[in-house]
């Protein structure tokens, strides 16, 4: 490996490293605008100039490969002068409107101008004017601020895989734009806001609402999909102002999806902030005691076999644990956390998690996607698949709906017939999986929520074991969930007990009059019209489907308002933290259930979250290992039932409308309207 001396410090670096990387390794800080370690190298901002001995001119370190014996200086007077020159050129056409710019306070140009800017202007001409571009409802543009680093263009083209941004014109007339100013369609477009080193691309919904130094930053976990992306929630007072990504190489690298980033306006609208009880067919505001008494009355007159509980997609493990304990103490066995009716969770843990882990996608050399559209179900995970595809030698086969996943795929077929051909080896793609060193299967909920879901699952597991997808040292059998609460619920065993009903059974029972009381813990994704005449208790955050049907509403806390455990699709346990308090009388969910248990006379044996977690860890020990992957055995696929020939249909139809918070968000509604607008001439100003 080449040895490089940076400012007198000798470091040994990778042969493929650049001078900039060598400098970083030696601890020298290099200013930059265009260089980004997750994007291709452009080398066009020239801010990273360094002096290399025996080189005639200053060298752009980001684009210069290292050589053995290179001697680099980053702190000399010549380097400083060179960078000052670059900065002066950059500022010639930059408007210097920091006081009215949303990037102010977190702007790379502002920060670096402190180090390399000069205090006067030698340029007497007019600055150039650039028309602002309309990029849709998420990104606000002020193109006079653009310094043409092209990070946004490279991100949209390389990472998101939807090449819609480009730089037209040349020289002074270069402009960043979408093709004919159509709105961007990528589900990851919000990341260009973070990438933009200046205030050219800023967040439209967040525009002019806060300054970064006023915000309280809380590092927490996202629940919009089952990835558990690491996020930072910025809040001011009780209000969540924005959501930003955090770096976690194993999960989301440093990207988040647009739903994760722009969901926050949904946290402020349609909120349940007081308990309600239904009287004479109308909901009225009530006190907590009234609400609890009403439930207690109903529970007292109902036998356990006529009660049921469904946990929703955004529930934390603690509240599911409290609800489960409460239900078990009442003798209720009709429990389910699988709102979508997926036929999983009854076999071992390995049959329902993303066993390899998200990071291991970069080790796979063949991929079979069954009944899933990862682009909509987990956009950031899809970007990881794309990343692996761009490295080459990564054939991807798809069984299910043929969708544009942002990378080319072999479309194999629509349903179980094709799956059977893969399993018996008669399909050409079976050969691809056989010869692969680390083959991977991603099963979506589209393949598991069917009547024959169990048969599809066990057949696929059996195939995975025979085809080397599951073998010593490699487990590429992966289930991709769509709900943040799902794996936690399954780990906890929030499932039908003996002779208990599952979600479908509960709905059937309720509409047939066999169930008298249904407890919904944030469950809004079910067909509430099938709840019949049952007495419905809804505990949740938003006035959505469940609350509209409820007889008693208990206002809970959203994911940014409580500390809670979430298990992502990999089975990785992560803890969300409270960024703001719940509105009005709303309380943390476990505490509501604990209080309710006292009214019902079945006091839960924990008085604090700490006690609850202790009980939880005792019951499910692996939940105590935070932020780590624990390997799980995949049980033998015992063939149960036969597979129907109906094609797989994907779990997510409308990416922007998958949960109650998203449905309360105006920004998400705008995005959904735009995405559903078949008229390709839509410009983003619609809605």
């Amino acid at each position, binding site marked *: 490996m080449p040895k490089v001396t940076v400012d007198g410090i000798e470091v040994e670096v990778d042969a493929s490293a650049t001078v900039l990387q060598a400098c970083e390794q030696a601890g020298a800080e290099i200013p930059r605008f265009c260089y980004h370690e997750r994007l291709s190298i452009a080398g066009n901002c020239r801010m990273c100039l360094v002096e290399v001995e025996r080189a005639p001119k200053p060298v752009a370190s980001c684009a210069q490969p290292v050589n053995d014996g290179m001697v680099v200086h980053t702190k000399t007077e010549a380097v400083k002068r060179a960078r000052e020159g670059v900065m002066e050129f950059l500022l010639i056409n930059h408007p210097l409107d920091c006081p009215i710019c949303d990037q102010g306070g977190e702007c790379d140009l502002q920060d670096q101008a402190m180090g390399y800017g000069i205090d006067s202007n030698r340029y007497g001409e007019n600055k150039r004017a650039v028309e602002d571009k309309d990029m849709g409802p998420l990104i606000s543009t002020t193109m006079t601020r653009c310094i043409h680093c092209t990070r946004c263009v490279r991100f949209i083209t390389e990472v998101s895989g939807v090449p*819609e941004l*480009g*730089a037209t*014109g*040349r020289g002074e*007339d270069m*402009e960043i734009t*979408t093709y*004919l100013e159509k709105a961007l369609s990528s589900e990851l477009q919000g990341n260009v806001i973070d990438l933009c080193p200046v205030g050219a691309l800023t967040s439209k919904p967040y525009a002019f609402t806060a300054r970064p130094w006023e915000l309280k930053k809380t590092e927490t976990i996202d629940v919009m999909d089952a990835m558990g992306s690491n996020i930072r929630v910025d809040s001011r007072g009780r209000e969540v102002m924005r959501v930003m990504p955090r770096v976690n190489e194993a999960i989301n690298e440093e990207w988040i999806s647009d739903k994760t980033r722009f969901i926050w306006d949904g946290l402020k609208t349609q909120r349940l902030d007081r308990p309600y009880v239904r009287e004479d067919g109308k909901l009225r505001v009530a006190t907590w005691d009234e609400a609890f008494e009403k439930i207690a009355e109903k529970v007292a007159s109902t036998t356990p076999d006529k009660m049921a509980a469904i946990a929703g997609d955004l529930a934390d493990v603690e509240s599911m644990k409290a609800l489960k304990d409460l239900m078990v103490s009442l003798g209720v066995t009709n429990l389910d956390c699988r709102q979508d009716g997926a036929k999983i969770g009854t076999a071992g843990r390995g049959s329902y998690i993303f066993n390899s882990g998200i990071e291991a996608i970069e080790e796979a050399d063949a991929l079979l996607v069954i009944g899933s559209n990862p682009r909509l179900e987990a956009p950031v995970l899809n970007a990881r698949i794309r990343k692996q595809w761009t490295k080459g030698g990564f054939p991807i086969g798809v069984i299910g709906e043929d969708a544009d996943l942002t990378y080319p795929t072999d479309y194999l077929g629509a349903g179980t017939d094709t799956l059977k051909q893969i399993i018996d080896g008669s399909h050409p793609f079976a050969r691809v999986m056989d010869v692969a060193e680390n083959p991977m299967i991603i099963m979506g909920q589209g393949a598991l929520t069917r009547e024959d879901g169990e048969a599809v699952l066990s057949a696929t597991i059996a195939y995975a074991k025979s085809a080397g997808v599951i073998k010593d040292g490699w487990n590429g059998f992966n289930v991709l969930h769509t709900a943040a609460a799902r794996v936690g619920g399954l780990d906890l065993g929030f499932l039908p007990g003996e002779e208990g009903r599952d979600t479908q059974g509960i709905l059937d029972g309720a509409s047939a009059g066999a169930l008298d009381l249904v407890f919904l813990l944030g469950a809004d994704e079910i067909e509430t019209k099938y709840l019949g005449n049952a007495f419905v208790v809804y505990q949740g955050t938003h006035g959505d489907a469940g609350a509209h049907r409820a007889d008693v509403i208990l206002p809970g806390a959203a994911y940014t308002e409580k500390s809670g455990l979430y298990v992502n699709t990999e089975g990785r346990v992560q803890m969300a933290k409270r960024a703001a308090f719940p509105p009005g009388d709303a309380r943390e969910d476990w505490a509501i259930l604990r209080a309710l248990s006292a009214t019902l006379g079945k006091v839960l044996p924990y008085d604090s979250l700490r006690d609850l977690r202790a009980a939880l860890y005792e019951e499910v020990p692996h939940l105590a290992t935070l932020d780590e992957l624990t390997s799980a055995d995949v049980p033998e696929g015992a063939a149960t039932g036969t597979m129907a020939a109906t094609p797989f249909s994907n779990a997510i139809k409308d990416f922007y409308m998958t949960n109650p918070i998203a449905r309360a968000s105006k920004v998400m509604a705008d995005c959904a309207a735009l995405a559903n607008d078949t008229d390709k001439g839509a410009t983003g100003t619609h809605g």
Partner: protein
Amino acid sequence: MSVRRLDANQPDSFEFTPENIEWSKKQMEKYPEGRQASAVIPMLWQAQKQEGWVSEPAIEVIADMLGMAKIRVLEVATFYTMFNLSPVGKHFVQLCGTTPCWLRGADDLKDVCRKHIGDPNTVSDDGQLSWMEVECLGACSNAPMVQINDDYYEDLTAENFAQILEDLRAGREVKPGPQTDRKGSEPLGTLTSLTTPITAEGAE
């Protein structure tokens, strides 16, 4: 140079002629499989030859043919000033206004253009002529000069240039090259250097 945008008035569609489709296929075959985007500049050029300018439908047709994102083709089309993004006249005059031509009277030629054609970058009412000022076309020894479609017209004066424009408009034949009696870029009048004969012993 100025900001280059697609024309506000665009045709509904664009289609290559059958010959041009054949030609395009040959261009695309020059490059290895998956690298067809390399043919984008020749294809845009051919579209311009066919229509006189590059329209939005043409950009989209070429993007489809080459498997490129539309924005990538738009980037190329707006980068190179040789691509006309607005319609041009049947006879498209590119007038050199760079220093040598300017010193030799390019301003007079501009006046002729204004008088006989109209404002720059607008097509004359009869659709026959349009003109624009360009930078050096590399024929400085025959300054001032213009390029009309594929040919250079050199050693121009206001009079003979006006005549050329009117001849073109009327469909009469015109002679490309120097408009005086000199050949190519040989000296005007007699030789002023290299006047002594060269013998076997060398120059005297």
